[in-house]
């Protein structure tokens, strides 16, 4: 049953105070071929209703898995009762949230026929066969499909209504060799993005070139050298620039983390980066193209707008939900998002990116005498101080302006508000991805983008 068949506005007469009513369904597919065996073959379908009520500065929240009329009414009543209970003990002076009415519908499910499970497994099997045929000496390989559809139907007491079905389909390939020292050497890459499987992947052969590229990098890693620890000149390629934008700056400018004490709190209007650096949390589109995680109306019923975080090196604005916008006296931005039907909306990024510059990647590499070209991240974490850490799964030495040997897995770190001041070149190419999940009480898909960036950064190693 599509959530479109339920009209949440029909329950408005049950609302008591500011109230949100959200129906949501998350459907996921996870299929793993490990060395040709199907080690994972799971589907998940979770749906339900949640309601959130705001009274005297206190939120009440409740959720249920059933979607019947009585269940929806009971959920609203439970949320209202929770708000009244806690407000009775700990209520604060009356706080009015910003009022806003929005309406939008966005559906990113395929308009074509769905592939059968047999067709999808065959697609993955053909990829696995390609890998074993082309690269028979691999110690281990895996091919994984990870699909997620998030369907939401929202109505609130401001009169906002929104429907969305945001989809993502990823194929993740992992390869392992054993090097001359007998140690495993691994490299993985995710392909795909927004859309359902049918719209993202056509033929297995479409991925052959990228898988061969992945393998070529893995072969280079077999003779990788350990990087020299310390502050180095580096080129951070687009994927790293995206995670830098998200982790190192993005989190420090989420208004709830600003209230907690983030270093960004005192820096609005100040230069925190090179004038070459501009950064935006885009709501749904950039340069006329729909982004990986498009948000038109957020889970508080607010129109999602782009938020300029850094403009020409100067810190601009924070990302808000209704409560933080009211606290700071700033405009609502539409950044409140929830992952599952039973989750409350939190301030989350949508599609965060450093904007492209005017330099050519080759010129940037050529400008470094002794440094590193860092290409793919493995994971990342940020801090209230803007100190960040990213794992690096693929990188190369740069010697005298030329790419050299691959480097072993390592970690880079720095203080973003210092490091971004060292940026001297920004490439003119923009790459977007959405393979990761951001964790902040709940996980949620986010988009990240960026060009290549030349800067100085602390590299882990010997």
């Amino acid at each position, binding site marked *: 049953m599509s959530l479109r068949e339920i009209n949440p506005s029909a329950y408005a007469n049950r609302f008591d105070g500011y109230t949100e009513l959200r129906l949501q369904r998350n459907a996921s597919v996870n299929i793993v071929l490990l060395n040709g065996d199907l080690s994972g073959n799971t589907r*998940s379908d*979770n749906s339900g209703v949640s309601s959130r009520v705001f009274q005297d500065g206190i939120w009440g*929240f409740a959720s249920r898995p059933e979607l019947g009329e009585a269940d929806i009414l009971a959920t609203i009543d439970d949320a209202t009762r929770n708000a009244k209970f*806690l407000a009775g003990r700990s209520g604060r002076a009356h706080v009015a949230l910003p009022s806003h009415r929005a309406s939008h519908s966005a559906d990113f499910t395929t308009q074509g026929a769905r592939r059968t499970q047999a067709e999808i497994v065959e697609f993955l099997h053909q990829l696995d066969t390609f890998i074993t045929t082309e690269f028979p000496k691999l110690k281990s390989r895996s091919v994984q499909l990870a699909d997620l559809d998030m369907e939401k139907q929202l109505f609130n007491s401001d009169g906002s209504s929104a429907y969305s079905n945001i989809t993502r389909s990823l194929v993740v390939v992992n390869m392992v060799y054993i090097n001359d020292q007998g140690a495993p050497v691994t490299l993985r890459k995710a392909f795909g993005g927004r859309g359902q499987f049918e719209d993202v992947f056509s033929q297995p052969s479409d991925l052959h070139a990228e898988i061969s590229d992945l393998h070529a990098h893995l072969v280079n890693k077999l003779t990788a050298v350990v990087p020299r620890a310390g502050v180095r000149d580096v080129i951070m390629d687009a994927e790293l620039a995206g995670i830098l934008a998200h982790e190192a700056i993005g989190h420090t400018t989420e208004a709830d983390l600003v209230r907690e004490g983030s270093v960004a709190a005192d820096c609005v209007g100040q230069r925190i980066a090179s004038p070459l650096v501009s950064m935006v949390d885009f709501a749904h589109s950039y340069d006329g193209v729909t982004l990986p995680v498009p948000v038109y109306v957020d889970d508080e019923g607010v129109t999602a707008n782009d938020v300029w975080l850094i403009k020409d090196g100067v810190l601009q604005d924070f990302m808000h939900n209704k409560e933080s916008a009211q606290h700071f006296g700033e405009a609502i931005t539409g950044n409140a998002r929830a992952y599952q039907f039973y989750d*409350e909306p939190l301030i989350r990024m949508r599609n965060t990116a450093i904007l492209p510059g005017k330099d050519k990647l080759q010129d940037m590499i050529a400008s470094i005498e002794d440094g590193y070209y860092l290409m793919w991240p493995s*994971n990342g974490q940020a801090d209230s101080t803007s100190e960040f850490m*990213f794992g*690096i799964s693929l990188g190369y030495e740069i010697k005298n302006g030329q790419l050299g040997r691959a480097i072993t897995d390592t970690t880079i*770190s*720095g203080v973003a508000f210092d490091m971004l001041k060292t940026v001297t070149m920004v490439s003119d190419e923009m790459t977007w991805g959405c393979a990761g999940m951001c964790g902040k009480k709940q996980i949620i898909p986010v988009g990240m983008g960026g060009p290549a960036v030349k800067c100085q950064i602390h590299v882990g190693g010997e």
Partner: protein
Amino acid sequence: MASDNVDYCLEQLAARGFDHGEVRATLSEKDELQAEFNVPSMLRTVRNQTLELAGIVNHKKAELTLNKTDPQSVQDAVAQLWDCASAAPADAANAIAEAQPHQVFTGPALSPDLNTMCDRLDEFLDHTKSSYPSVTLGMAGVSHLRTRQRYANSNGVVFDSQRGHYQAQAMFTAKEDHDVSSFSYSGVSTYALDKPIAACASFDRLMANSAAQVRTRKIPQKFTGDLIITPDCVGSFIGFLLGSLSGGPMISGTSIYKEGLDTQVGAEMLTIRSLPLDMPAGYFVTGDGYPARNVTVVERGYLRSYLLDLYAARKTGLDRAQTAGGCYAVDAGTQPLAQMLASVERGLLVSRFSGGKPSDKGDFSGVAKNSFYVESGALAYPISETMISGNLADLLMNITAVSIETIDFGSSHYPWIKVSGIGIS
């Protein structure tokens, strides 16, 4: 919902033609009391139900999870499961647990005490304001979680279980003027809210640390030294070993411990156990359909058990673990913490590690967060922008002391651990 739904699901799986079927029905409820920025902010009640179905036909297996229990939803799910299993390649390692006697498991703390939850949270907020005025609690909360579950399979296995526990957690930052500490956090799982939250786990110690870590310094120079790993991040340093003992790396053959049973993988003072039956955040039944047992994984430095479920055990030809992992405890050692600290000539006291994913052979590097520089046996000053690097397999062999003192998080239980030979830059 448990018994009727499970029986109905098994009937439907058999009727569809599956050779083997298993069902896990779970009813979960959670009451969460939350505070933001040092004041109560939300009361959240979450109810959910899940049906986890697995079916095997001709050695082909698929799994499906849904949160609806009506007959039509179950029938649709079984039909979809059939399609998924039919499309899968056959694998002789696919199996379900063999016949076992029916068992019922009942834990404590099955009902929440909402007023005590409120009182404990208020007390914690007041304590934080008065004791650590520079600390802001970004998000803090007290929750009660309870589950009722039935696992059953077509071999006649039926396990019923119910359990509940409280959780308290807080994430916080200290700030003075324009200087701010790194964020920090602690959490505890417990059967009873019988003492102040701040006195549980590491709350008081870490909030005091944050207040003292607002202004940090870089270490004087790159060096090789000692680490004292606090209980808050022991999990980060033993996680590589435990992950390498699990199904994925063992099946793929990439685990560096794949030939390691009964060989030395750590210093003699290192004993690691998985204690799902002893911890509030534990479990009674494993995911593959067996009663959970407490298991010694590493005993005085020697590997005694892999962490393989039924499929991974059949795939590798090794023994199935009697635990599904998690709930890890490291045995207390023999040295007082003060003596360990006094023995450090030069090194770090590390409370949080923010690192990249280690390589398959255990090489790691990352940032020492919420940490202190230690010199001549005493804490010198809080640090920032400091990286540590080494090899996680070597690190376990280079443990030189384990503390008498331990911290019980309710989901794990760890002492302080001292290691030598770590690169610090």
